[in-house]
């Protein structure tokens, strides 16, 4: 069995080059934790959307990854944080079709559908933190539990 080494990390998100490292790290970590190909692809795609949000709307920040265990199931938690302007209207930002800035990305709503657990903490003028969790095993579990 692999240990958490290679899974837990903190990566900067400062340029579009960093988005490539973020995707590669998430793919690698999900692979180590035993994610199937579809779940791996979903999580990598969600990470790409959220990291781009951090870069474009948050002015840059970081992604922290942590391996999780729940019984025999292993999961991956990704936390994207920035010290940007924050999200003024979270309800709207989570709705479909909401974009701000240059209109890149499907917004938070798209990324939320790709993961098992999703939480946003945003304070205008202070920053935004988005935390997502996916599990290697697809069995349903309570949402919002970190």
């Amino acid at each position, binding site marked *: 069995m692999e240990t958490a080494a290679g899974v837990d990390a903190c990566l900067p998100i400062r*340029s579009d*080059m960093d988005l490539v490292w973020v*995707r590669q790290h998430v*793919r690698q970590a999900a692979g180590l934790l035993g994610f199937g190909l579809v779940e791996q*692809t979903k999580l990598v795609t969600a990470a790409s*959307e959220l990291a781009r949000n951090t870069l474009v709307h948050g002015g840059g920040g970081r992604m922290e990854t942590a391996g999780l265990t729940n019984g025999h199931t292993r999961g991956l938690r990704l936390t994207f944080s920035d010290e940007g302007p924050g999200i003024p209207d979270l309800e709207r930002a989570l709705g479909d079709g909401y974009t701000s800035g240059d209109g*890149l990305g499907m917004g938070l709503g798209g990324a939320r559908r790709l993961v098992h657990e999703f939480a946003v903490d945003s304070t205008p003028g202070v920053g935004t933190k988005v935390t997502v969790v996916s599990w290697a095993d697809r069995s349903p579990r309570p949402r919002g539990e970190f």
Partner: protein
Amino acid sequence: MNHDLSGPVTGHVPVLRLGDVLLVTLQGDLHDSTAQQLQQDIGETVAGTGVSGLVIDISGVEMVDSFLGRVLAEIAARASLLAARTVVAGMRPAVAITLVELGLTLPGLRTALSTEVAMDLLAGSDPASRSGGPRQESR
């Protein structure tokens, strides 16, 4: 389009001309600026060569997020204005599943399951067909 020089461009994207069709093969994890450069290059190549078709092979692409999805759609839209038809070939099932859940179904994009089918589609007699070719698993 801004020219981001902050990072190295990762990899080259080969663009091959096969008769009246341009074949572009995307591989691995594309840097945003590589994708944007490709978008520009393809537009110029289509206009310069006057080809009537464009096949973008994404069978080697492990992830399509909304940015790359948008780039593909814009390449197809530009090619269409330049009188060339675009077929995106070989999308992996995991990528297709993810795109739908993301909410990005790219309705304007013509697809085929392989480059070979895409070439047939462009050479084919039925240009109005939106079919992606026969599926292997259909019975």
